[in-house]
Each structure stands twice: as C-alpha cells, then as structure tokens.
C-alpha cells in the first residue's frame, strides 16, 4: 500500500481523538470510550457535508460555533428508532416480564437512551393493555436535549404509522393501534393519557449517576456504541439502580458478557436479552 494512505489514516485517528477531546473539555459530552469505527464514520460524514478541508478545521469550528456542536451531537447520537422495534421483544415482555411486574404494588421503569420516545410510548401502551400503566412511573432519559424535547411531544410522521402498526400487531397488541394516537395529514400524536406517567429528562450514561431505584431498566441499542470498559461501567449503573428481582432489557445484539457485573444478573429470556437482577449481590 502507498505510504501516503497509511499516513492519512494515522492522521485521521489523531485528529478524531483531538476533536473528541475538544468536545469533552468544552461541552462535557464524553465520547472518548465510544466505538471508534462508529465515531469515525459519523465524523467523516459530517466533514464531507461541511465542506471543510480536514478534521482539524472541525476542531476549531467546534470550539467557536455552537450550532456546529449541536449538529455534531446529533451526528454522534444515532437517534434511529421505531415503535415496537423488535416485536418479539415486546411479546416476551408481555408474556414473561409483565407477570414479574404484577407482583409490585407500584412499578418504576427507566428507559435509558430513549431517543425520540417511540420505545417509551410502546411500553406505555403495552402496560396499559396489561392493566399496569396506572401504577407505573416511567423515567425516560437520553443525553441529547433536542431529542428529549421531541420525545416529550410524542409527534411522529404519519408515514411511519404503517410500519409501527405492523410491529404493534406482531408484538401481540390487543387493540387497534390507531386508538392510541390522533392523526392529521402529516403527523400522528400519541394520546396525552400515555404521557401522564412519564418523566422525560436528559441524563448522560457516561457522566451522570444513578437517580432512582427502579424495577426495570430498558436500554436498547445504546451499549453497542460503547467500548468494553464503558459497557462495563454502564451495566454497573443499571445494577445499582435496580432492586433485587428487577428486570434489565438490552438490545438484541447486546450482551453483558464483557461486564464484571454480569454475575449480578441471571437470564430471564435469553434470545431477547432480558435479565433479572439477583436478590443477593
């Protein structure tokens, strides 16, 4: 291979590290232990769109231009999500987690990395159908303030409803999905009754600590972006937050095998990555 290519790649690694460091020092967002391949893809993407000459130019821009930082924050926090994503997961929650939750007089759930809220409203709908919603408190958090605002609004493009409805049905939904939102020609708004027991707030899994004791933590498709050390730390955070017998739900391609806290948990539904925290840890 040509030497210049090696050089270019080596320089990019250094520049990206400095960019991430600049964001951390100036704004407190800590991407230092995120998957490098992922960060690089997003940064190069933004570089190409921005018309800047190189990543070093982006560093200066990040320091002086708040709009650019916000943009980069959106780039790095992949917010892609959907209602009842992985229907088999919600089916498993309905069949195997709900019986656990039913044993509690009052249920507290933490959705960490909830993005624009689709996952949270899906859970609220499921709990309503299972007769549990009225005694549930949901904390829905994400580190991205822009996305938390969207989540709070609960308004989604109407053209996504077909896909969401299909997911809902596959997930064992008991009603007509259209009962749960009001629609106009371009958007669908989740009914307010599903919002009353949800608190939306910003929370950064890397830099913030436990804020409540909960019976269930749902954190899906967030740990895939973290390196082993950070995964380990965040699973520890969840373990601290959960009561004994509480439920931890991860994404379908996530596991706890790299976490030193994995002995705190046992598997409840293996294929769906649903775990129970042991009573004595």
């Amino acid at each position, binding site marked *: *291979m*040509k030497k210049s*290519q*090696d050089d270019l*790649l080596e320089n990019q*690694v250094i520049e990206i590290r400095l960019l991430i460091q600049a964001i951390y020092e100036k704004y407190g967002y800590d991407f230092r232990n995120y*998957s*490098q*391949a*992922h960060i690089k*893809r*997003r940064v190069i993407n933004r570089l190409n769109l921005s018309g800047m000459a190189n990543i070093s130019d982006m560093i200066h821009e990040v320091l002086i231009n708040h709009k650019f930082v916000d943009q980069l924050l959106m780039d790095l926090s*992949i917010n*892609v*999500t959907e209602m009842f994503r992985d*229907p088999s997961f919600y089916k498993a929650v309905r069949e195997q987690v709900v019986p656990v939750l039913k044993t509690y007089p009052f249920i507290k759930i933490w959705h960490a990395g909830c993005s624009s809220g689709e996952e949270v409203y899906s859970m609220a709908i499921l709990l309503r159908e299972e007769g549990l919603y009225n005694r549930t408190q949901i904390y829905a958090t994400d580190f991205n303030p822009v996305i938390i605002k969207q989540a709070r609004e609960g308004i989604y493009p109407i053209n996504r409803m077909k896909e969401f409805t299909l997911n809902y049905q*596959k997930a064992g939904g008991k009603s007509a999905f259209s009962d749960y939102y009001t629609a106009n020609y371009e958007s669908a708004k989740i009914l307010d009754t599903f919002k009353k027991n949800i608190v939306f707030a910003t929370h950064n899994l890397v830099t913030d600590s436990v804020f409540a004791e909960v019976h269930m933590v749902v954190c899906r*498709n967030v740990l*895939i*972006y973290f390196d*082993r050390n950070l995964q380990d730390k965040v699973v520890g955070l969840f373990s601290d937050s959960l009561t004994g017998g509480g439920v931890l739900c991860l994404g*379908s*391609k*996530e*596991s706890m095998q*790299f976490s030193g806290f994995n002995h705190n948990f046992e598997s409840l539904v293996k294929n769906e990555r649903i775990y129970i925290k042991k009573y004595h840890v």
Partner: protein
Amino acid sequence: MTPAKKYKAIVVGSSAGGLNALKTLIKNLGKNFSIPVIIVQHISADSENYLIHILNDLKCLKVKEADEKEQPQPGYAYVAPPNYHLLIESDQTFTFTVDERVNYARPSIDVLFETAAEAYRDQLIGIILTGANNDGSQGLKKVKELGGMAIVQDPETAEVDSMPRAAIQSCTVDHILSLEEIAAFLNTL
C-alpha cells in the same frame, strides 16, 4: 510474508440472488478453508436470519451471526444480523450501528467494506456477488485504495447483474470470475 499467510479476512456482499450464490461459494470452499469470511447479504429487518441455517447445513465452514466485539476466526463465516450495519473496528472486532440505511440497505455492504478496508488494509479481500442495486461498489473501491484485493462475480454468471456491474465500474478489480472459480481461487491462497 508468504502469500499464503497474507490475507486475514474476506468480506462478501450479496443481494438479490445472494442465497444461491453464497451456497455455491461456501460449498466450494474447502472445509479447512482458513481465512475468516464476513458476509453482508441484504435481508429484511424481521427475517430470522434463516441464511445462517441454510449455510450451516452445507457442513462446510461454520456459519454464525456476527456478535458484538467478536474477533473473526479461521474456519468461520460470519453473517451480519438483520437491521444493523456491521462495522469492523481498528482492532479487527465487530461493532454494530443502527443508523440510517445506506443505499436503502441495513446492513449495507459499503459500510462493512469501508470499515474492513481500514482495519485490514492490504490483508483484505473484498468480493461482490449478485444483486439488483449498487451497494458495495464504494466499499470495494476503498478496499482497492487501501491495498486489498477486489473480486467480482462475472456479471454473465450472476442471477442479477447490476451489483457486479456497478462494482466493476467503480474500480480496477483484480478478478472477474464465476462463483466456482472464485472458490477455486480462494482455495489456492
């Protein structure tokens, strides 16, 4: 370094017609084929990844879904899970992301090839097989740029020829071969 030891991974991209093509390819690779094979086949988001079962039933390479932070091993073929992009980290382990579709696809062949090219550089072989779009051609170009080898299924022999044709146009590929010939060639490495 002897040529026999040179390549550390093979990335394969396929789309429409890919199931049959992958079967032929895997069947014709020796059981003891020692370079890890990493596959992106375009599949729908809710498919159960039946591809893995079918390829495993051939009793050739061991075929499994790629897992997070796993390091590809000789004797194995890894398939990207539905609805995630598969990336290779610089330490040559797997990572996933769920960001936007690329070329209408998630997993996307370009995403795998581009990140694999950076992780393996001149120790990588990229192979584009049958398909109806142009995913993979940017990735294959990158494989070449970073010193890897580019192989494309001969469009005349492909079930659907647009993907191999797009790949051939994107860069100077090293070999244009039928599936059987690709396997025979790889077996000599």
